[in-house]
């Protein structure tokens, strides 16, 4: 359940910051897609001209009714969410790079190995050390993230069906080692396949978001400084 919760949390955070929804359907002054295209084609002069036509008061109203999302000086995500996100990204990448080296020691899929040049750790033992060191970064960052979500009330606002108690219960069970691989995933070998598939999804997630960032580079800036 924690895994699902975290997935939801991270998806939610990232998409909130860099999806076009920041532009869409939040304003009382609506534009059609045609208008949007027109605006893009008209270039900066036309935009400025249109901009001037709108009264300051109307702009202010629009801004407020849009949940303040459109105010460029307003922080979209608080600093702790941003810090937590980037630590999470670092941990995920370290675990992935070292995990590839671990995978190579005994490939799940015969004939498919990951080039050692793009792995981390130098050898199996080194990769395991990296993997289980980055695990703590992920772990404590996750605790920090959940704690801050509960303390600030963000959890209740955003993830209503998940109660803090349920999350803490699962966390406790995991800590006591009761959520073993065998019980959770139907056998050791199958657990390896699940582990690999989860990594592939995460890798695809990163690739898609890198593409999104390269298309709208400003979103990266927003994710770092908050606006």
């Amino acid at each position, binding site marked *: 359940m924690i895994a699902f919760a975290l997935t939801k949390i991270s998806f939610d955070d990232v998409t909130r910051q860099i999806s076009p929804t920041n532009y869409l359907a939040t304003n009382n002054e609506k534009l059609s897609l045609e208008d949007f295209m027109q605006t893009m084609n008209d270039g900066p002069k036309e935009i400025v001209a249109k901009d001037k036509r709108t009264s300051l008061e109307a702009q202010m109203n629009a801004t407020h009714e849009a949940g303040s999302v*459109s105010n460029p000086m307003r922080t979209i995500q608080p600093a702790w969410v941003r810090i937590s996100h980037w630590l999470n990204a670092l941990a995920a990448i370290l675990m992935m790079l070292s995990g590839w080296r671990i995978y190579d020691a005994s490939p799940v899929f015969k004939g498919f190995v990951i080039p050692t040049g793009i792995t981390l750790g130098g*050898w199996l033992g080194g990769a*395991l050390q990296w993997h289980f060191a980055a695990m703590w970064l992920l772990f404590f960052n996750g605790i920090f993230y959940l704690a801050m979500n509960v303390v600030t009330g963000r959890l209740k606002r955003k993830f209503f069906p998940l109660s803090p108690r349920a999350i803490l219960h699962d966390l406790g069970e995991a800590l006591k080692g009761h959520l073993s691989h065998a019980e959770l995933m139907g056998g050791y070998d199958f657990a390896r396949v699940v582990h690999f598939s989860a990594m592939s999804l995460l890798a695809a997630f990163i690739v898609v978001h890198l593409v999104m960032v390269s298309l709208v580079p400003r979103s990266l800036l927003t994710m770092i400084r908050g606006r």
Partner: protein
Amino acid sequence: MKPVKPNRVSVDRESLIIDVRRELDMPSRRLFGKRIVTLGGLAMLTGCSLSDDKSVETFLTRVSRLNDTVQGWLFDPNRLAPTYTEAQITRPFPFNAFYGIDEVPIVDGSDFRLKVSGLVQNTKTWSLPELYALPKAEQITRHICVEGWSAIGRWGGTPFSEFLKQVGADTSAKYVGFRCADDYYESIDMPTALHSQTLLTFTFDGQQLPPKYGYPMKLRMPTKLGYKNPKHIMEIFVTNKFPGGYWVDQGYNWFGGS
């Protein structure tokens, strides 16, 4: 059902204007951002190496020792590793060591004496018939290699806790260490040494333990990874001084199990 209204995509105009204006102001920054995320840009990262740094290595080793402590806390002496049926045994069971199968040490069983030392009351040596006379136990469990492969085997011998009782081991000591005929060495935590599934084994699949699987004896712990299970044991000692292990001293995690 009502016909679905065509969905007109609406735009927050102010946001759009602000963004477009900013982007148009800084075309070079946009281009730079794009170029970083190219194959060439990413390829340059592969030249980075963090693994060789001595301080990084020290840090990672320290974290690994910390993980030993946490694994010690999480260890539940009453939790058992899964057991399997005879039909699930992996045949042939793989041979694995830090050397090839033609370099397996040949131990002469007739004059073999197991040495016992350290924090024990009785340091007398043990012949194989004396060891075979100890209470019997057997298990079919999964041997899991740190590399990721695994195999199910059937081992027979005596509960290691029983052996420790026989030699009057100080069970409040921290470690039990092993020295082996193939120059392998290993050590384990006392709680795992006393775990009910930790066996000092003399047979494999109902036969005398063959040389390739560790004759004359192998310590079998289904709660730990393969490299923690020493073969060809010649000496067992109890100590409070961290003895390390062949692979552990090269970087593998010491606790190596659950």
